């Protein structure tokens, strides 16, 4: 745990605990999406959009008879949180502008969180490796969901939904142990308050985007 992860293999290994819950959520998405948009569209969506909450939001809007624009806005609002992550990790990606833009496509919540070294830097290999188990779980789960969905028990019954917060809390505690400067602790506290304050009433996705603004505390000298 205290050797710094730095290889593709480290990224894959660290992201493995999420395969099962991601698979389960992928199955749930497949079950939800298949009657609304069809098996092929659901599967293609998991491959080309590859962002669980955004896909669920878009399908939910379509299911309720919402317009194309509403579905797209709902999805993109959720994915907007990847923009600050993209800027943060860019200096640690490799090669030309376009090569880096291609590598940045592998940013997902888990791969980004795992790649942070706690000192303000990011490990490119860990981010790329960390994406792999997420892709296997998400796309595999969607395929299972659209094919045989109904026969699998609710992920919540098994407590699988609690794996995500526990995973991110583990990463957060690791980061805070690596760098427990006052500034980091203030950013954590502010982001927590912003998220809790906005969650009850703001549109889905907005609380996380707003919470990333807590990083602006870093503007102080």
């Amino acid at each position: 745990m205290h050797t710094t992860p730095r290889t593709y293999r480290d990224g894959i290994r660290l992201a493995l605990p999420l395969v099962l819950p991601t698979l389960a959520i992928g199955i749930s998405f497949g079950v939800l999406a298949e009657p609304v948009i069809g098996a092929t569209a659901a599967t293609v969506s998991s491959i080309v959009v590859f962002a669980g909450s955004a896909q669920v939001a878009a399908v939910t809007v379509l299911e309720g008879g919402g317009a194309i624009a509403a579905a797209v806005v709902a999805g993109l609002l959720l994915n907007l949180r990847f923009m600050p992550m993209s800027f943060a990790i860019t200096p640690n990606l490799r090669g030309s502008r376009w090569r880096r833009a291609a590598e940045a496509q592998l940013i997902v919540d888990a791969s980004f969180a795992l790649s942070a070294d706690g000192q303000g830097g990011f490990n490119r290999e860990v981010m790329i490796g960390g994406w792999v188990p997420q892709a296997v779980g998400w796309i595999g789960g969607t395929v299972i969901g659209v094919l045989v969905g109904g026969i699998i028990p609710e992920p919540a019954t098994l407590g699988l939904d609690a794996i995500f917060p526990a995973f991110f809390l583990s990463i957060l505690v690791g980061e805070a142990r690596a760098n427990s400067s006052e500034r980091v602790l203030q950013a954590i506290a502010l982001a927590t308050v912003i998220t809790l304050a906005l969650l009850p009433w703001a549109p889905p996705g907005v609380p996380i985007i707003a919470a990333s603004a807590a990083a602006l505390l870093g503007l102080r000298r």
Partner: protein
Amino acid sequence: MTQAWIVIGLLAVGTAAIKGAGPLVLGDRPLPQRAVGVVALIAPAVVSALVIYETFADSPDGIVVDARVAGLAAAGLALLARLPMIVVIVIAAAVTAGVRALL
């Protein structure tokens, strides 16, 4: 059905643009000096938000307190005891499933 394909296409293009924004704007230049301090706090801020979101978010929106809170508390204790991540996660799932079965 056509509607669904249009939505998927727009979401795919929009998401790729969002994720590629950093490299497309910065290229291979380093971050401007003023941004370095901000970027160092993005991971702690975003990950904190994800902890809260994954614990309290209701589907499709809103806030709810359910068995996940017990799982998160158990995970916190396990982390204080410096248990490995995989153990922390198994404890969180088991406690959440147990509390949910009792409620």
